[in-house]
C-alpha cells in the first residue's frame, strides 16, 4: 500500500470529512494537533511519506499485514474478527465503583493489569466537560475516574503516539475500533524506524457503532442541559430510540434520531464494530443488564482474564448462543453498511 504524507491525509480524509478524530495522526509531530475534539493541521508539512498517513485508519488499512502482525495468522473476514472465545463478564468484588457503563469489565481488567504489574500505565479516555481527552494513568484509582462511555469521538491514539515519543513501554490501551486500528498500524512501525519501540503491551477494545462529533455534541447538549451537571449517558437497546442523559437523580431522554445527526461521516465507513485489533474486546451484553460481552482474541488476553478472575477483579459467565447470533448479525451489518458506503465514496 502506498504511504502518503499530510497533503494526502487532507485530500483523502479531512477534506472529505472522513475523520473520526481517533488521534492516530496526532502526537507524532508538530503539525497535526487536536483542539476541542477536532483535528487540525497547524502548519504545512511537505514530507511525501508520513506516519500520520500510515497510521490513519481512513487512508486504507492493510488488514492482511495487521493480522499477521497481531495474530500470526491470515486475516479473517468473519464479522467478529479473530478470537479465541466469547464470554459474559462483570467486575468482581475487588472493584468498587458505581459509574460503570455496563458490567465494569474494562475498568476491572485495567485495574487488575495495573495493580498486578502486567502493565506500567494505561492509556484511557477522560473528559473535560463533554470533550474527551486521553489520559495515561498509573494506578487503579485513577483508572476508575475514567470509567463510563464518553460518546464523543476521542483522540486516544494521540496519547499512545506521545508515549512512544517519550520512550514509554508496557502500556495498556483502551479504545474503539478506529483508535485501535490506528494504534495497531503504529505498532507495525510503518516507516521502519530503526529506533522504534512498541509502547503498547495490552489492548482492550470497546464495541462501537458510532461516536459523536465532540463540538456538535457539546453544542447540542449545552442547549438542553448544563454539561457540568451530567453524571452519565446511555443508549438503551432497541427499540427505545432514545439517548439518555442522567443528571443527579433525574434523567432526560433525547430522541436518538436527533443525536444521530451528530455522528461524524467517518463512522459510516468504519467496518469494525467489535474492535478487532485488540487482545480483548468488551461491549454491552444486550439482554443481560449489568453484564458485558467479552471477546477474548489473544493468548495474552486470555491469560489476563483468567488471572483477573482468580484475583477477584472479574466474574465470568457463559455467553448465550442467541447472544452470539445477535452480536454476529450486528457486527456483520456494520461491515455491510461500511462497504456499501465506501463504494459510494469511491465512486
Amino acid at each position: 500500500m502506498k504511504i502518503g504524507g499530510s497533503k494526502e491525509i487532507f485530500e483523502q480524509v479531512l477534506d472529505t470529512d472522513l475523520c473520526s478524530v481517533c488521534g492516530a495522526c496526532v502526537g507524532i509531530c508538530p503539525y497535526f494537533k487536536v483542539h476541542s475534539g477536532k483535528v487540525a493541521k497547524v502548519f504545512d508539512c511537505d514530507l511525501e511519506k508520513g506516519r500520520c498517513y500510515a497510521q490513519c485508519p481512513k487512508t486504507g488499512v492493510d488488514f492482511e499485514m495487521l493480522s499477521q502482525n497481531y495474530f500470526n495468522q491470515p486475516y479473517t473476514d468473519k464479522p467478529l474478527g479473530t478470537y479465541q472465545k466469547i464470554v459474559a463478564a462483570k467486575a468482581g468484588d475487588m472493584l468498587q465503583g458505581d459509574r460503570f457503563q455496563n458490567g465494569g469489565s474494562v475498568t476491572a481488567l485495567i485495574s487488575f493489569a495495573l495493580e498486578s504489574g502486567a502493565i506500567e500505565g494505561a492509556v484511557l479516555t477522560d473528559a473535560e466537560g463533554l470533550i474527551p481527552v486521553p489520559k495515561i494513568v498509573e494506578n487503579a484509582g485513577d483508572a476508575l475516574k475514567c470509567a463510563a462511555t464518553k460518546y464523543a469521538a476521542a483522540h486516544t491514539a494521540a496519547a499512545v503516539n506521545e508515549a512512544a515519543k517519550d520512550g514509554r513501554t508496557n502500556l495498556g490501551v483502551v479504545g474503539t475500533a478506529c483508535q485501535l486500528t490506528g494504534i495497531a498500524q503504529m505498532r507495525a512501525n510503518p516507516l521502519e524506524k530503526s529506533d522504534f519501540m512498541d509502547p503498547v503491551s495490552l489492548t482492550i477494545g470497546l464495541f462501537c457503532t458510532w461516536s459523536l462529533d465532540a463540538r456538535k455534541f457539546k453544542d447540542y447538549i449545552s442547549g438542553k442541559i448544563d454539561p457540568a451537571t451530567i453524571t452519565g449517558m446511555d443508549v438503551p437497546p432497541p427499540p427505545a430510540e432514545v439517548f439518555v442523559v442522567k443528571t443527579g437523580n433525574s434523567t432526560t431522554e433525547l430522541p436518538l434520531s436527533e443525536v444521530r445527526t451528530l455522528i461524524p461521516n467517518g463512522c459510516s465507513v468504519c467496518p469494525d464494530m467489535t474492535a478487532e485489533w485488540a487482545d480483548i474486546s468488551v461491549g454491552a451484553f444486550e439482554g443481560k443488564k449489568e453484564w458485558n460481552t467479552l471477546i477474548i482474541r489473544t493468548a495474552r488476553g486470555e491469560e489476563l482474564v483468567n488471572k483477573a478472575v482468580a484475583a477477584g477483579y472479574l466474574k465470568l459467565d457463559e455467553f448465550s448462543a442467541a447472544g452470539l447470533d445477535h452480536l454476529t448479525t450486528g457486527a456483520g451489518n456494520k461491515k455491510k453498511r461500511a462497504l456499501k458506503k465506501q463504494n459510494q465514496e469511491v465512486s
Partner: protein
Amino acid sequence: MTALTDPKSNQHHLVMGNEAFARGALEAGVAVVAGYPGTPSSEIVESLANVSKERNLYVEWSTNEKVAMEVAAAGSFAKLRSLCVLKQNGVNVASDFFLHLAGSGTRGGMLVLTCEDPGALSSVNEGDSRHFSRMLEIPLLEPGDFQEAKDITKWGFELSEALKCPVMIRSVTRLSHASGNITFGDLPETDHKAEFKHDGFILDPDTGPMISAPVAYKHGLQQQKVQQAIKMFETSPFNTYTGPGNPELLLITSSACNLYSREAIKLLGVQHRVGLLKLGTTWPLPPKLLEKHLRMANKVLIVEEVIPFLEESVKILAMELAEEIGIKKFFGKRDGTIPSTNELNPDIVIGALCGILGMDYAGLTAEYSEKANTHLFLGAPAREGTFCAGCPHRASFWNISQALKLDNNEGFVCGDIGCYSMAVLPAGYSTLKTLHAMGSGTGVASGFGKLGQFGMDQPVFSVCGDSTFYHAVLPALVNAVHHKSDITLVVLDNSGTAMTGFQPHPGTEKDARGEEALQMNIESICKSIGATVRVADPFDFDETQKTIFELMGMKGGVKVLVLRQICALSPEKKGIRWFDVVVHESQCLGENCGCNRLCTRVFKCPGLVWDTEKKVSKIDDAICVGCGVCSSVCPVGAIENMEVK
C-alpha cells in the same frame, strides 16, 4: 548627522535630503514642528527634535498626521513659522483638516512637507499627494536637488506668509534619503513670540477668528491667492531652463526626475537637441513661463513619477495657449512613453529620449548585460521578507496562527501598517488576510464582527502596533465596543514606533525632545471603554495560546489581548542576550517524520540555520539575539536555552 545648526553660512556640507529640508526650516526661523513617523520622512522631525533646545523649537511626534497638522497650524495662527511633516498616506489622514485649513488661511508661514514613496520601497501604496494642491487650491513646490530642498523650504515659508495660506512641499525617497552637497545660509535669531489674535473683525486675516466661513467668500479669497502665486511663480528662481534656444524636444520635469533627466541628456550627449525645463513650482503652473518654453519646440516630453499630474497641468495650459504656440506633440505617461507606476531612473528617461529622438543607446555591452542578468536572476539566492531575529511579532503570529488553525473555524486576522504587515507573508505564517491603512484592521474587523446577522460565524481578529493603536485604532475600537462587535484585537506592543526608528508615542515615557511625557496604558484605555482585556507575553506560547482561546470562547463584544514584548532592536534591548541558545545535534530530528525542519522551514528565525551537511539545525551566533523562543518551537527539546556565560 551633520552639524545642522552650524552657524557658518557659505560653507559646503554633505547632507541627506531630509537634513537639507530641516536646515531650510531652521534658516527660515521655524518655531513649531509636528509630524508622525513614516518612511521616508522621519529624519526631518528627528533632526529638528535634536536641535530643539538649541534653536528654541517646539517639536513633537503627534498621535497622527491630522493632529500633527493641527498642532502646526496652531503655531501659524499664533504668528509663528510652523512645519508639518508626513508621508503620502499621512496627507490622506490629515486631509480633512487640510481642506479647512486652506479655507481659513494661515498667519505665520506654514509648510506641509510630504516625503513620498514612488515604487513603495517602504509603503504599501505609492500614493501621489500632488493632487491635494489642485484639490485644496494651495501652492505646491517640488525641489529638484539637495540645495533646492533647503532653499525652497526657506522660501516656502515666505510664500506662505505672503499668501496667508499653507504651502505644500513634496519630496520623494531619492531626494529625502540620498545625500548631496549644499551651501548653508544664515540662521536667524530664535526669540519667537507667540500670540493668537482672535477678537478682530470676522474677515480680518490677521486679527479675526481662524475659520473657513463665510465659505464662498473665503473660497474666492483662496482663488485670489492662487492667482497671486502664479504671478510669483512666473519669476521664481526654482524654475530653470537649460538647453538650446530652439530644441528639437522640450523635456519638462520636476523633483528627483530632474536628476534622472539631466543624467540621461548628458549620457546621450543630446544637450544641443533637448531643452530641459525644470519646474520647482508645480501647481499652479505659471502660464507665461510655460508659453515661453513651449514655443521653443514642437515635441514635448514630460518626465515625472507615478501619476501624470504635471503632464495634465501642462496639457491644459498648452490647450489654452494653442492659438499662440501651435499644436504640440506630447510624450509622457498618457501615451505610455513613461511608466505610470514605480520609480523612474536615468535608464527609463534614456529609453524615452532614444524613442523620440530615434537613437540607439546601450549603457552596457551586450555581453556584460547578459552576464549581469544571469547573475542577478539565477545567482542570487531567493529571499523573502522576514522579521528580525528575536522579533516578538514572529512569536505573536506563531501563537495567533496556531490558535486559529486549532480552532478550525476559518478564523482570520485583519491587519494594518507596521512591521507586522509582513504577516501577510510566510514570515508571519500568512496570518493577515486584509491589509490596508493605519487602524484599518480594527475598523474592518469591527464590520466583520457584525456579520453574524448574515450567518458569518468565523472568528474575527485584528492586530495593531502600540503606536498605531493611538494613531487610528482608537476610533475603530470605540466603534466596535459601542456596537458590541464580536472581535478580538491583538495589540502587538513592542514599546515604540519600531518600524520607523523607535519614535515616542503616547505610550512612551519621553516625547520627541527627550522630555518627560504623560505615559498612557493601552489596557487601561481598553478597559475603560468596556472591552475585555488580557495581557500576555508572546514568548510564552502556552500562556498566550491559552489566553487567545479564553478570549475566543467569550461570545459577543470586543476582546483585547495585549501581547507585550519589547522590539529586539530597541535601544533598551539591542545587544542584550537572555540566553546562549544551543542545538543538541544528536536530538535534532531534522528532516525526519516527526519534525521535518519545523524551526528552519516554518518558524524561520534568521538566527537558526539548516546545516546541509549534517542535516541538523544550528544557531547562527552572529545573528541569534538569544531570545530563546525557538526552544519552545522544537518538538523534541533539542534546542536548549543556556545561561549566558
